[in-house]
């Protein structure tokens, strides 16, 4: 296929690694080196496996999740490529489904899966997604939450190589709550891209996570939260850890429209360089047109505190363990946002495994 990809000349894509995406798209398919059973967490709930973007019924028990053609599309340059068969979660008023697990295994080349999550009033769902294998996995997830609905979404990018691009488009209604937490702890390149709009009074939106990069890997997150209605709140807590000559980039934007009085937005972007040759790019942006708002934002990049490392080592920790503990503490703020303990612990373990190798 020929791809019409964004270029670095476009501001929103200046840190993107489209070369890695194209290389992944052009790779050959091979036998999978990981099985769905290795990736599902030991928790109850519906399970869906996609291999190279194709639903795998033998390793799935979809429950209320429908595998079907998803009609809607997106104007987003990568998101619009995800069309055709995908998955749909549509919950009735007050319904609850916890811990839907979706695993995506790639073996090479490109695969595209669209998804829709529609929660009616006061419905509740939680969702865990895992990416493994290789190739280019491209996803579009459209989310709409009606009044009082709640969605907790945790996504981990563990592909050994290749590229994962994720595009989220969410609409959060009155007093509804969306929390999305991402962990990039594989060897792939990535682009996590989100646009969240609060369309009802008192909506709560959160999108954050941790990107861990090593070698010459590049990962990035680019998120826009648009407060269109009053009394909303949002949080974007992102941590980037970069080793070797890798690059991790975070761009987070909060827009507060004129009517969106009493918006409370928090944005915390922090980078940690494990080597001087690594790079972290941070771009926090606020665009506020209402006058009665509270928006806190901070963006800092640093190295591990030498005094703290010596303190830990003087008590007997090896230099590698001291660095691992400090780095794990650094990303904890972002991963601790995950509500379910088993999921939170699994993500923390993935981050620790990454640290064992990278440090």
């Amino acid at each position, binding site marked *: 296929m020929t791809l019409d990809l964004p270029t670095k000349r476009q501001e929103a894509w200046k840190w993107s690694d489209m070369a890695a995406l194209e290389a992944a798209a052009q790779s050959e398919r091979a036998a999978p080196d990981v099985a769905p059973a290795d990736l599902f967490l030991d928790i109850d709930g519906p399970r869906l496996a996609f291999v190279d973007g194709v639903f795998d019924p033998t390793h799935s028990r979809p429950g209320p999740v429908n595998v079907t053609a998803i009609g809607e599309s997106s104007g987003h340059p990568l998101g619009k490529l995800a069309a055709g068969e995908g998955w749909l979660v549509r919950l009735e008023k007050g319904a609850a489904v916890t811990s839907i697990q979706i695993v995506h295994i790639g073996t090479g080349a490109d695969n595209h899966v669209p998804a829709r999550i529609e929660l009616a009033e006061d419905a509740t769902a939680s969702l865990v997604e895992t990416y493994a294998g290789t190739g280019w996995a491209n996803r579009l997830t459209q989310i709409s939450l009606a009044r009082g609905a709640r969605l907790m979404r945790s996504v981990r990018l563990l592909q050994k190589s290749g590229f994962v691009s994720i595009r989220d488009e969410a609409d959060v209604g009155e007093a509804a709550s969306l929390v999305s937490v991402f962990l990039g702890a594989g060897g792939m390149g990535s682009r996590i891209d989100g646009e969240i709009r609060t369309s009802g009074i008192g909506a709560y939106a959160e999108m954050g996570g941790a990107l861990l990069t090593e070698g010459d890997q590049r990962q990035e997150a680019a998120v826009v939260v648009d407060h269109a209605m009053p009394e909303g709140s949002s949080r974007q807590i992102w941590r980037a850890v970069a080793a070797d000559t890798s690059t991790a980039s975070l761009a987070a934007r909060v827009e507060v429209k004129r009517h969106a009085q009493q918006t409370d937005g928090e944005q915390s972007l922090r980078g940690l360089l494990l080597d001087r040759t690594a790079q972290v790019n941070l771009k926090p942006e606020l665009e506020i047109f209402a006058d009665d708002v509270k928006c806190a934002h901070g963006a800092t990049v640093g190295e591990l*505190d*030498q*005094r*703290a490392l*010596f*303190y*830990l*080592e*003087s*008590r*007997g*920790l*090896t*230099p590698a*363990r*001291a660095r691992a*503990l*400090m780095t*794990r*503490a*650094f990303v*904890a*703020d972002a991963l601790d946002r995950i509500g379910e303990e088993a999921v939170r612990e699994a993500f923390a373990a993935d981050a620790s495994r990454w640290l064992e190798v990278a440090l």
Partner: protein
Amino acid sequence: MLKIEKLHAAIDGKEILKGLDLEVKAGEVHAIMGPNGAGKSTLGYVLGGRPEYEVTGGSATFRGEDLLDMEAHERAAAGLFLGFQYPVEIPGISNVQFLREALNSQRKARGEAPLSGAEFLKLARAQADALGMDQEMLKRPVNVGFSGGEKKRNEMVQMGILDPKFAILDETDSGLDIDALKAVGEGINRIMRKPDKGVLLITHYQRLLDYVEPDVVHVLADGRIVKSGGPELAVELEREGYGTVAA
């Protein structure tokens, strides 16, 4: 136990220790006093193995081994403990998590079995109680939001848990009120006053020495030990100042 000969050390190219000699035998407590900037903390850091300090000459042997050849964590496993003048705050890592890992890492290096979570908690609680530290503080991030006195108590709790052979305590008495000073003094005696252990107490004041009586008192000035004597030297220093005594 600890033997330092003609030790020279520098930081950022500036020589701070300029030929320091000192020997502490097992069962002894030595006090080091001296004016600000004399190099007392530098001595502690150099013996503890802080990488920024460069040893430019001399030697230090600890229990027969070349101390200067070991990394900081190896010195800890060999039984050395450094009580910090300014204990470091570490957000995101709890005291128990840190200390359990520290202790088990030392035990592993010595070929001993690790302590289980329950065994460790029992030990940590007993040490916190003995030093009058609230057990809740064990769960808090290392030193974060602790007062000066609480940090110093925490250093002593750590020493009690790690049970070292030799402790270098850098101004553990500064910033303590009288009750805390007493608790810390008793802690040092309880944990370290043993025939097979040694202590190097770095202090500005005589007052800690009322609780922990030193066998030898040294005056450190301009990177060298300029005078040594018995406990009476500390009293003399307190009365007359470093200027006259060290001259």
